Every structure is written in C-alpha cells, then in structure tokens.
C-alpha cells in the first residue's frame, strides 16, 4: 500500500488529475496537471509502479509521404497528369514524350493499364494511348489526405500496399498511450492529498539566498535510469597496437617506420626471395608503374648472392638476377622491408628494433582477408644471440601480451633459417598459431654487411584483434560503426 508521503509533488498532481477524468492521453494529462508531457508521463509511470495508475498501450501503423510522394501529392501522379493532358483524346506516345520525361512516361504507362484508365495499342510504328475514363483515384486520394496532414481513418489495404511498393509512402509504428487511475489510487485520493512546495533543481539563487533551507528538497529515486553518454576515445584497435608498442619499448626496442612504397629490392631481393618466387607474382603483390633507385653498394652483392651464393658457401638460386626487376616499386607486402633496411643502415651491434605498420597484399577482401593490414615486427641483432634467445624473445613478448602458455613448432619462411611457428594457448580455442619467427638467413645478412645473427619475429595483428575485440569481420576495424566506437569498453583486457 502506497503512502501519501512517498509521492512527489508531480505524482500528486497527476494523481489528482487522473481522479477527475476517466482516462486520458499524455498530452491531455500534461495540460491538466500543468506539467510538461515528459514530466507528467514520468510521474504517471512511477504511479504505475506503485499500483496507483494504469497505462494502456496501443500501437497503430501510421503512414507518411516519401519525398517522391510529396512531389506527386503536389503535382499529381504521373498517370493522372497524362490522363489530364490527353483530355479524353487518343494520343500518341511521341506526343507524350514532348510533354513528359521518359521516366514519368515509364511509370505512367504501367499504371494507366493496371488502373484501367487507358488502353495502349500499337498502330504501325506508333503506340497509341486511348483514355477509358476514370471513376475514382484511391491512390491519389490517400496521397492528398497524407499531404494535408490528416489521419487515415478508413482505407483500402491494397491501395496502401500499392503506394508502399511505389515507394511513395512509408509506414511507421505509432504507439498511443492511455492513462487511467486504479481503485487503489482512488482510495488514496479519497483520503486526501496535500501538495506542498518542493524543490527539484537547486539553483545559484536558492543557494545564495539561503532559501533552500526553508524548502523541501525532493528525494530522487537513485535507481532511475539516466541518459547514456559516451566520451570520445582512441580506436579500440589503436589501444591494442599501443599496448604492443609499449611492450617493445619496455623491452628496450627502438621504434622504426618508413615508406609504404618500396622497391622490390628491399621488399624481396634483399630478403633473398628468388625473382621467380610465386609470392612476387602480380596476383599477390600490388605493383606500381614506378621504378626506384637501388643502393649501389648493396645491389651487386645481393646479385652475387642470388646468382651463386656469394662467398658464404651457399648455392644461391642460380639463374640471372635482374637489376630492373629489383627496381620495380611495390606497396610493401610486409614491414620486413623496413627492418632489413634499418639493419643495413645500422650493421653494428647491438640493434633491437620494432615496427608496427601497414602492409599490403593483393587479396580479395572478405571477413578474414584484407588487402591492407597492420603487421608487427621485432628484430634483435647482436654478437652471439641464438635461436634459444629468439624463443626467449617470443616467450617474453607473448607473456606480456597475456598469453602465458607458448609453444614452438618448426616453421618455414623464405628468409629465415631456422624458422619457428609460435603457438599460444587460448581458452576455448586451444593452441593457435600466432605469427612467425626465425633467424635471418646468411644469404640475407651477409650482402648487407651484417655480421651477427638477426632474430626476427612478426605477426599480422588482425587475428589478435579479432580475438581481443570479439570481432567476426576484420573489415569492421577499418569501416567503423560509430556506435561501436562509442560503446566499446576500453578496459577489456
């Protein structure tokens, strides 16, 4: 049983109004209670929760005109205008074409026939339209009614269907509410309701004047839901990339970045990818029309390495290595084009560097493949570093990424030897492959004057993003739904 003192002033007002009317609309209620509609309805809802009022809801379809519908309501439907134009006389199609646009005629001819307003027949090479007289035009009538802002009380559902299919009107659901008092509410009113002045909003005036001490501050229901607000944020993917960047920086790595456009030399040849390697074919790589310059000091040594293995006891790939092919520019297919260049520029140990950047592959776009994606890569070059240290880097890196369990399997990458495929354990998915790693081949390092082993690892971050951000479609990272950006919680890992 609700007690009188539980009611706010607004609720009391609304209840008093309800006790005098049988049932009412929100607008009517608001005006009788001298409140705005929103406040009156909030009070009515609260009264409802206390069992003092009832709110009945009824939904109806309402129709409104589309821009095309408005146009026809003003000008008349094309078929109607053509009928009027013909003024009861047979008219040829070419005559009509002089007065109406092709699009209007297209629309009109179909409807003239369908509505039985005219017949169309071919005579010689000419289509002739013969008007048959019009009884009524229910479509036009409905457009007029809607245009005049009138409610449709009675209508033929088939006509509505036709107008919807012509895209001249759109339907929307409208909910109407009716509020009435309950018996319990009536009993409460019968016992008498007193309205005292209450303060809802504290104002500077009330504070300064001390007036607030004399009034009653209304107590709020702290459980009332409030409007959701969303602050501007970093992109969730950026947050993930920043986390990885931080890990590298904490481990003492230097950040590198560089051009998207690279010569095939840095993208492939310096990494000992044979010039006839399938990965270099145009179906996998975005080639450009341009050619770039080669670093003269390295080009001849790389050529020797490809052709016969240079002077390190390698067999090389054999065949002829073409300088012109090496000059062809591409959109970098991996960030390794940047790390190898960095190492060539800094051949003295130690080097610990990382790169997080875009890479490009000529792949058809779908939920799990993108022609452009973020790749992460780290390298360590120092005297005496070993395969065991590479595994150490991987274990540490993945641990800091939150993957406690890491295991290693042999792998294959064209420019590393030994190569390794790290796998991490993910709850519910089991062991999943996450990236690749290895020690750069001597065929890669020797021509560039790098004398010590280079430990290298990398991964496409997209897969990790799908795991962490719960995405099903990689494209969503780059074609952001603003609502998702707003709502995506920042602390989910």
């Amino acid at each position, binding site marked *: 049983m609700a007690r009188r003192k539980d009611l706010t002033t607004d609720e009391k007002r609304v209840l008093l109004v309800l006790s005098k009317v049988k049932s009412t609309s929100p607008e009517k209620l608001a005006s009788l209670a001298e409140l705005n509609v929103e406040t009156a309805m909030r009070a009515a809802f609260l009264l409802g929760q206390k069992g003092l009022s009832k709110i009945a809801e009824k939904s109806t379809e309402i129709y409104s005109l589309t821009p095309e519908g408005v146009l026809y309501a003003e000008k008349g439907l094309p078929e109607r205008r053509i009928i009027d134009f013909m003024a009861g006389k047979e008219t040829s199609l070419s005559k009509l074409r002089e007065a109406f646009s092709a699009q209007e005629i297209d629309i009109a001819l179909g409807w003239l026939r369908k509505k039985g307003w005219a017949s169309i027949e071919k005579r010689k090479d000419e289509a002739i339209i013969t008007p048959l007289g019009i009884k009524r035009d229910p479509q036009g009538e409905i457009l007029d009614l809607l245009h005049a802002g009138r409610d449709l009380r009675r209508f033929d559902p088939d006509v509505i269907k036709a107008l919807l299919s012509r895209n001249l009107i759109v339907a929307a659901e409208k909910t109407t509410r009716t509020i009435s008092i309950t018996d319990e509410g009536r009993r409460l009113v019968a016992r008498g309701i007193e309205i005292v002045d209450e303060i809802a909003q504290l104002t500077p005036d009330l504070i300064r004047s001390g007036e607030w001490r004399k009034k009653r501050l209304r107590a709020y229901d702290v459980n009332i839901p409030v409007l959701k607000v969303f602050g*501007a944020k970093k*992109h969730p993917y*950026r947050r993930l990339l*920043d986390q990885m*960047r931080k890990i590298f*920086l*904490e481990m*003492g*790595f*230097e*950040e590198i*970045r560089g051009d*998207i*456009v690279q010569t095939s030399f840095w993208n492939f040849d310096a990494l000992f990818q044979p010039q*006839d390697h399938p990965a270099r074919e145009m179906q996998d790589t*975005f*080639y*450009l029309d341009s050619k770039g310059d080669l670093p003269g000091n390295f080009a001849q040594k790389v050529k020797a390495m490809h052709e016969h*293995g240079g002077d390190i*006891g*390698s*067999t090389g790939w054999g065949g002829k290595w073409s300088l012109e092919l090496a000059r062809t*520019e591409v*959109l970098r297919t991996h960030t390794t084009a940047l790390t190898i260049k960095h190492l060539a520029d800094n051949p003295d140990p*130690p*080097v*610990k560097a990382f790169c997080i950047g875009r890479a*490009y592959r*000529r792949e*058809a*776009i779908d939920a799990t493949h993108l*022609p*452009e994606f973020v790749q992460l890569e780290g390298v*360590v070059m*120092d005297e*005496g*570093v*070993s*395969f*065991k*240290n590479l595994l*150490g*880097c991987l*274990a540490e890196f993945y641990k800091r990424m939150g993957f406690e369990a890491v295991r290693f*399997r*042999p*792998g*294959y990458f064209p420019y590393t*030897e*030994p*190569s390794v495929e790290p796998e991490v354990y993910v709850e519910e998915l089991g062991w999943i492959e996450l990236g690749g790693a290895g*020690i750069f081949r*001597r*065929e890669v390092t020797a021509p560039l004057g790098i004398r010590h082993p280079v430990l290298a690892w990398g991964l496409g971050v997209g897969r990790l993003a799908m795991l962490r951000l719960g995405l099903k479609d990689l494209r969503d990272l780059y074609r*952001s*739904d*603003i*609502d998702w*950006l*707003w709502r995506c919680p920042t602390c989910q890992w």
Partner: protein
Amino acid sequence: MPMVTLRYEDLKKLIGADKDVILDRMPMIGADVERIGAEHADVEFFPDRPDLFSIEGVARAMRGFLEIETGLPRYDVLESNVSITIKKSVRPIRPHLACAVVRGLSLCSDSIESLMSLQENLHWGVGRDRKKVSIGVHDLSRINPPFTYLATDPSFEFIPLDFDRPVSMRKMLEIHPKGIKFAHLLEGSKRYPLIVDSAGNVLSFPPIINCELTRVTDATRDLFIEVTGTDISVAVALNIVATALAERGGKIESVEMVSDGAVRRMPNLSPTTRALQVDEVNSLLGLDLSAEEIARNLEKMRLGATIHADKLTVEVPAYRADILHAWDLIEDVAIGYGYDRFKPEFPETATIGRTHPIEDKFALLRELMIGLGFSEVMTFTLTNEKVHFDNMKRRRVKVTRVKHPISMDHTMVRSSILPNLMEILSLNRHRELPQRIFEVGDVILDGKNEQRLAGVFIHSTASFAEIKSIAESVLRDLGTEFTIEEADDPAFLEGRRASIIVDGRSIGVLGEIHPDVILSFGLDHPIVAFELDIS
C-alpha cells in the same frame, strides 16, 4: 601449401609405429595436421620440403625422426637399357629433361592416387605450376625404347589421356581440360614438345598431357618417368619421385640421356656433402651439443654425418631441395633435437627503448583531438579515384596507382584523409548526431609517405566558426604560428573555406563541406571539416 593425405594403414606399414605416436610427433618435424579423420589424416607440409609431398617421403622422414631407421637412405641404381635422345629442336622451348625407370612395383588404386598427388604437389611446389617442371609417368610395358624428346608441328595428332580419338596438339590446347589450363605455357611457340618411342608412339606432350596409351593402372609393374622443364630443378623432382617409388619397393634403374652427342645417365642419387662446424651449430642454436649429439640429430633427419674432431661432414640425400647453406643443416639439427626441448632465454643485449618522433606526434594529436570530443577512426589507405576525387569535387591528379587492382574499390593509395572520413560518416548516416571523428596517419605524395591529421563534424548547425576554432586550438597546442587565408578547395563551400598558412605555405584547409559533396556521400546534414599536413 601442399596437402598430403596419409592413410593410417599405409602409414603404419611404411613407418612401423603406432598412428597416434606418428601424428603426435609429426608437427615437430614441420607440418600442420589439418584434419584427423577415421581412415586418414590430411597434413600440410612446407614448400621448401617437396620430398615430404608424398606419404612415402613422409614415412621416410618419420622413420628417422622416431629413430626407427636413421641416417642417409641409400638407393641402388642399376643401369637399364633404356635411352632417350634430346633433339636440338626442343631446346628453345623446354630444354631440360631428366628420366628414370622404376621396376617391380605392385600398385593399387591408393598408391596410384598417392603418386598422382605427389606429381601435382611437385608441379605446384617445385614446378611453378608446370612452368619450371612437369612430370610424366608411363607404363613402360606399352612402349618401346629408345625414346626421343623433340619439338614438332602443332598439327601432329595422338590420343591424349581421357580421350578415345586422336586430336591435334593445337586442338588439345583448346578442348582438353589440361590443355585449356596450361596452354599459356606454350604461348608464342611455333612448335610443341613431344616424347615418342622407337615405333612412333607418343608418351607425352609436355608440359600439357600424357598419351592414353601409357596410362598407369594397377596392372602396371614397370614405370618410365620423364621430367621436363626450364631449369636444372628437373633433376631433384625426378629424384623425389623415383625415391618415393623405391620406398614402395620399386627398383630404380638409370636411363641413358643423349644430347648433342654427349651421353650421361640419370637419376644421379649420390648425396652432396657439406662441412659443418660444431661451434657454429652451438652458437647459432644457443646449445652445448657434442659432435656425436649433432651427428645423431642429423641422422634422425635422414642426413649422413661423419665426425672429424670439431667438425662434421654431412651427406645430403639427392631428394632434398632445401639445403642451400650450412644454416639449413643447423635447422635440421634443431628439429632433430626437438623445438620443444629448447629452454627459451631472453637475450642479454642491453639497449634503451626509443619511440619514433612521428609516432610521438601522432599520440599527441590523438590526445588533443579526443579532448576536443572527436572519436578516432582508422581507415584503409587504399581507395579509388571516385571517392577520393570525384565525390569530393576535386580534380583528379597523379597519385600512387596500383597496376593490377583486385577491386574497383582499391585502385590507389590516398593522398588525403578527408575522403576516408566522409566515407565513415556515410556508413554511419543512420547513427545519432552529432558525430565528430578524426584520423591521424600516412598519405602518399610523390611516392613518399606524408603525415596528415583530419577531422570532420556533422550536425544540423555545423558552422565555419566551429571548425575554425577547433583547428586553431590544435595549431595553438602544436605551437604553430599561422595565418588564415581564403582557400579554393572545391570540396568546401566558396566563401566558407580557408587555408592555414605557415611560413608562406599552405599546410591545410578548413571550412564547410560543399553540399554536392555531402550529397555524393549519401548524407544530408551540414558538415565542417579540416585537414592538416603535420609532416
């Protein structure tokens, strides 16, 4: 990557171990077990190990890895009386040839299927889809040596595999499924390669199709194998096929190859040798193995190893295509040792972490923009001229275009970020307003990266003054001295657009987006925007 089907029954027979043990250890030799079925497993092997593209090759490797049979596999090669002559006419088209005979096989439908799939995997992995290497396998009893490899006129006719009537070679390229698929390999050739026997019977039309006559069936006992191609990798492909068949119990015999008067015999299965230093192994792997331990691990990987104090002589079997350098052997030592036995150790290399100044600037700009209420978006740098120029009312200029776009959406790399932001607004046209978004990132101008910041703001009363105060706020925070001038960027409304001038040069633009641009992105609310060069 090539997928190999491993039937458990076969696997057990060829290896002599339990299938669960085999499948459990297989990934540790370098394989992805894709599917474990009731009768067989599907396993992917790496492209550098074509010798593992058949169940026979896998069994040979796993017998070593499980220490059932270790060390270099030895295959006897007897001399056959089969010879083949390579005519000069074929040299400009497909000059390389390698042949062998394998006798005494008893094939069943499974082993024929395995042989066919090995051929297909080699065509892919070594042959660059038959361009570099293509393999033909023939029932030797149906043909009469000596054979001839020559080039002939495309009008020549024979009955190709799966046909019942003779067809000209030219026609085969038009109507036979294999002909259609591989016709491009003979583009420009006036004559086509052909292998025939002494009676004029056709064996094959490399690299397209075999003759129906020599089809291999379960009645076939003796095989003739020919590998044609454009370089010397024909030899290793032949060795892989011949030794795989020897693993099935076949006896390998050599073929006399006659070319321009010179005579030699193939296959040559003698191993190549390489020296390996104990120190180099231990220093690269971070282990402390003795020469004996290294030798044992190499033998597990089916290599031969002889110890000479602190170094080893390693024998590499003739079917291995991947050993270019000593480090390739060291990887085999590591695999033999077991990747799962290594104790990972973070390197002691002491260095100081350092950020890149451009990334630092990006981070600062993100902080500023978020403070101004803009949400960050990340977009593709790949775009197309329609979105980048036409929709923006901007004139098409020279940009970084890709040569063979894969879709009309991605034909070029952006030179401005603003069009990408307009696209994001377009995608979000049904979402609540106002929307404020920004991106900071790379664009390409003259083939070089440059950095840009762009922001857009859409709502029903968006105004020039609003975006000017936002852009000025960013510039103030960057400590940039600037002036504002009227601009002429057609993406913006005349009289409501401005250039940001620093040191007499325009570094950006701001203003109210032109209604034509708004409409071209399917939007209908006022938009204000700015873009700054922050390079």
